[in-house]
Every structure is written in structure tokens, then in C-alpha cells.
């Protein structure tokens, strides 16, 4: 009986490469799949592209290429990545350049484009598409001149087409987190586009794998202290059957853990209604899925139910949304928390006296309640050894935000006693607002293009 083996190589832009190398070296994986694009990543890539039009893809594709292309050549492993971001063509150029440098010829590198609709917004609105924000109902005009990017989430089909055209490597822009993982299953097993239950199983697989180590023992809330060797954690490897059921495991000799508990924690991660997990490829019902231990570090997953894919695609746009300035300073026992509170008051009065225009003033006491907020009980102050004060403000322009940070160094001399500053503890950054809309899928899909280029 045919089996397809899929490995997870990257869970975000900046993830480590060693676990993917472990899979390539020590397992019989056939496809290594990457999810490089969090919601915010395109904002980072847009800033790169504005500085240099040849950029706009995740730059660690160079590391991916140098590390894994030898295995594409030697073992026939295929790579599927959305590292293309806003510039799949540029990402392909970079990968071809590196392949040539390494003397690896004949590889077929495919790209899929058409997700980037930033230049089509007027045309789409003229065609009657409502691009108001789904969360707030505000019309697009409110932020139109501040837009940084606008991309529709594509599903697995463009990737399947690349594989059918013989691609060894597939590079896309914005796709769903699950598309890279589902596509090889559709291609290998020849699943029909309306085989909803199997597609739903593939979506569950993709969802479990797209955050790499989060399903193999990372970020695990149970007995995490017993999870072995997180320093060389193995990323997930799925052995998939034709009916879509699969066993989730990891490369031999790696750290981490694959258990019903590590898998079920990831199973619902960042999912909203578990009965209605909506993607461009199918709508999956996760409440029908069975998760069972099938051996040490082996978990069997089966039973997902699917419903027809929706007639719309989700679009996410990012817009400039003001600035954040922040600064940090530490205070030592005794009365560390009282000192930090007093310092926050000093900063606020100085800001107001300087006439800094801010819309929000936010205070955290690191070591006390920065991560848990008002639900965290305030400890007996005599037992608190140190507290770091972090102050943040929200402003409309960068200069106003930057003025906050400059108030911190003088506190060392002018404020409460027993102080330590961290280097680079003050910083200013642009805030990015996210805007979501739904768009009839045919308006996007009619522009989706795939192309294959061979490394000469």
C-alpha cells in the first residue's frame, strides 16, 4: 500500500534549519514543507522590498538552499515553501544562484503567484468587491493610503500544479499554513478536488505540522520538564496512507516527544470554531478526529470530516498604524516594586510636561505581572529581589515615540536608588494594523500563475 512521508522543515521566518537537516539525513522523508509566513511577516518583507525591489522574500531561503539542495539532488526530496512572500520570483532567483554556486544543475524550481492583490484593489472594488474590515466594518478608504500589503490566502492547488509540472522545489507567496503539506498528498494520491474527508485529513496534518516543534514537545504545558533533549528537538514527520490517516512521528535520535498530549495541544492551536476550520481547500470538522498513541513517539490521527470549500478567499492587508516607543529599567531590593512604580510616575509626568502626544500609556512590571496582568497576585514586596519597569506609549509619529526612551538614562542618577539599565533597552517601532476581507475566489484564481525553471 502506498505511503507518503511528509516532514516539517520550518514553522516561521527565522526558525532553525538543523531539524530539517535531521529529517533529510536520518529519515526517509519525501517532502520537506515550510510555513514561513505568520500574519505579520509580509509587513517585514514589504519594508525590505521598499528598500530593494529584488527583495521581499524570507532571506533565510539562502540557508534552506545551502543546507537542503544537496538532499534534493541526492535523495530526490522535494521542498515546498511559501518563502516567496511578496516576491516568489526573487526567491527563485536567489535559490538558482545558490544552486549554481554549489554546482547543482538540472533542478526544476517552480513558483506560484497571484496572491498579491495590492495593485488590484481599485479594480476589485470597482467590480463590487466589499473590502471593508470584517472585524470592525470600517471601509477600506479609512486606511487605503497607509496600506503596506494585501494578499489573498491561496490553497494547495497551485502547488499541486507545480508538482505535476515536475518541480523539485516549489516556492509560493501567501498560502494557507496547511497548503504546503496538503499539496503533496493531493498530488501523490490523486485525491479528487471534492474528496472532502481526505482533504480534511490533509488539512489536519498540515495544521499539526505547520508550527514545527510545537507538536513534538515544544511549548508543551504538561510535564515539559521530562521532555528529552529540547536542544536537538526533532520536527514532525508524517507517514500518510491513501485514505488520509497518518502516523505522526519524528526523525530517529532527535529530542522532543510525540504523544497524544503534545499532539492534542497543537491540534486546536489558533483554531477558532473546531467544527468549522475554513480553508480554500475544504472546511474541516476537527471534532470527528481520533488521536491515539501507536508506539513510542508515534501518534495515529484519523477520522476528519470535510465539507465543500468556500466560494471566497480570505484577504489580509497590513497598514501603518502609528508607532510604539518603549523603555526599560531595573530596580533592586529593597522596595523594588515601589521604586519601579515611582519611576513610572516620574516618566509620565515628564512626558506630559514635555508635551509628548501619546494615545496610550502602558506600564509593565517585569518579574511581577508583565505576562499575566491583573490576574497575577502582587507578591509580598520584601520577597521580591528585583523588578524591571517597562513603559510603552502609542503615538502617531516616530519622533514623539522616540522621546520616551530618552527619559530612561537620566533616571539612573535622578530617580529611586539601586538601578540597572540594559543596553538597547529603549526602542521605537512602527505598529502594523491588520485588515481582513473576503473576496470571491475566482477573481483571485483567474490570475494565479505557475512557472517552472530549470537550473542551468
Amino acid at each position, binding site marked *: 500500500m502506498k505511503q507518503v512521508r511528509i516532514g516539517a522543515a520550518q514553522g516561521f521566518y527565522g526558525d532553525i534549519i538543523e531539524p530539517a537537516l535531521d529529517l533529510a539525513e536520518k529519515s526517509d522523508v519525501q517532502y520537506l514543507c515550510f510555513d514561513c509566513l505568520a*500574519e505579520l511577516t509580509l509587513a517585514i518583507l514589504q519594508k525590505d522590498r521598499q528598500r530593494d525591489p529584488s527583495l521581499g522574500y524570507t532571506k533565510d531561503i539562502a540557508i534552506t538552499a545551502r543546507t537542503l539542495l544537496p538532499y534534493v539532488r541526492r535523495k530526490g526530496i522535494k521542498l515546498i515553501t511559501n518563502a516567496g512572500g511578496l516576491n516568489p520570483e526573487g526567491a527563485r532567483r536567489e535559490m538558482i544562484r545558490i544552486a549554481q554556486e554549489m554546482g547543482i544543475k538540472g533542478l526544476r524550481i517552480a513558483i506560484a503567484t497571484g496572491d498579491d492583490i495590492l495593485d488590484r484593489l481599485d479594480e476589485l472594488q470597482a467590480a463590487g468587491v466589499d473590502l471593508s474590515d470584517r472585524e470592525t466594518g470600517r471601509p477600506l478608504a479609512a486606511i487605503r493610503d497607509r496600506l503596506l500589503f494585501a494578499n489573498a490566502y491561496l490553497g494547495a492547488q497551485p502547488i499541486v500544479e507545480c508538482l505535476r509540472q515536475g518541480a523539485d522545489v516549489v516556492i509560493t507567496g501567501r498560502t494557507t499554513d496547511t497548503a504546503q503539506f496538503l499539496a503533496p498528498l493531493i498530488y501523490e494520491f490523486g485525491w479528487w478536488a471534492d474528496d472532502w474527508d481526505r482533504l480534511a485529513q490533509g488539512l489536519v496534518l498540515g495544521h499539526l505540522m505547520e508550527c514545527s516543534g510545537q507538536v513534538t514537545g515544544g*511549548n508543551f*504545558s504538561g510535564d515539559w520538564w521530562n521532555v528529552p533533549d529540547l536542544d536537538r528537538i526533532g520536527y514532525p514527520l508524517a507517514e500518510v496512507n491513501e485514505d488520509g490517516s497518518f502516523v505522526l512521528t519524528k526523525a530517529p535520535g532527535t529530542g522532543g516527544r510525540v504523544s497524544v498530549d503534545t499532539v492534542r495541544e497543537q491540534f486546536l492551536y489558533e483554531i477558532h470554531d473546531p467544527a468549522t476550520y475554513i480553508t480554500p481547500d475544504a472546511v474541516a470538522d476537527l471534532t470527528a478526529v481520533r488521536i491515539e498513541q501507536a508506539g513510542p513517539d508515534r501518534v495515529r490521527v484519523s477520522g476528519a470530516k470535510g465539507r465543500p470549500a468556500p466560494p471566497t478567499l480570505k484577504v489580509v492587508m497590513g497598514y501603518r498604524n502609528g508607532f510604539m516607543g518603549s523603555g526599560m529599567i531595573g530596580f533592586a531590593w529593597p522596595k523594588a516594586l515601589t521604586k519601579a512604580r515611582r519611576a513610572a510616575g516620574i516618566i509620565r509626568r515628564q512626558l506630559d510636561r514635555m508635551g509628548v502626544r501619546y494615545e496610550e500609556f502602558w506600564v*509593565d512590571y517585569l518579574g511581577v505581572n508583565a505576562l*499575566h496582568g*491583573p490576574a497575577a497576585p502582587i507578591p509580598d514586596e520584601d520577597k521580591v529581589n528585583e523588578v524591571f519597569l517597562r513603559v510603552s506609549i502609542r503615538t502617531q509619529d516616530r519622533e514623539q515615540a522616540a522621546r520616551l526612551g530618552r527619559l530612561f538614562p537620566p533616571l539612573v542618577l535622578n530617580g529611586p536608588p539601586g538601578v540597572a539599565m540594559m543596553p538597547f533597552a529603549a526602542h521605537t517601532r512602527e505598529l502594523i*494594523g*491588520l485588515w481582513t476581507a473576503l473576496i470571491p475566489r475566482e477573481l483571485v484564481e483567474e490570475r494565479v500563475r505557475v512557472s517552472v525553471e530549470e537550473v542551468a
Partner: protein
Amino acid sequence: MAKVQLKDVVLARSGDKGDTCDISVFAPNEAVYEHLKRVLTPEVVKAHFGPWVQGEVECFEVPNVLALKFLCHGALGGGASSSLRLDNLGKCFGSNLMRLEIDLPDHLLNQLHAGGEDR
């Protein structure tokens, strides 16, 4: 009946989408799951977080993995990329919820201990 913190009973993982934080809570067995469905209501969860959850809390039951899924709206200070919060991705909401104290009948508590839970 005993008072226990959720950290001694459940697994929990949280994440973000826009300004909504989602928290999954997993029971160790069916009996505890049935009990959690009664005591861990959206109202209780919302009250626990106080002003950090500005909007409504929704709950979905996911019995095949003995889970309750809570969606906390307006919980991240405007959403990851617009938030002044340190935990702008909502990853600490799960551990935060584990502070919550619930009533647990003795026979359920004894089952947990018999199961060799070591937290």
C-alpha cells in the same frame, strides 16, 4: 470537595489571531471533562482575566480530545502587531488561566493522584 488550581488538572495552550486570544484547555479524563464543562464557563474565564479581556468570551466543546476552546475577544491590546503588551501573541494566556481555582469533587481528585500526575 477540594479547591485546586487548574495547573494541577489540565493542559492548556493559547495563541492569537488579530485581537482575539484563543485558549484550549484539555482534561485528563472524561469525568474531569464533564466537570470542567460545568464549572469552567465563559463567564468564569472572562472574570479571571478582568480588564485584559475587553470583549466577549466564547466557548466550544471538543469532546474527542476532551477539550474546551475559549475565544477571548479584544484580549491583546489591538492585536500582535499593534499591541503595546509584552505578551502580544497571547502565548501566556494559557498559563495565566491555570492560576484559576476550581472546586473538584474528592473522587475526581483521587483519580488524578492515582493516575500519577506529577505537576
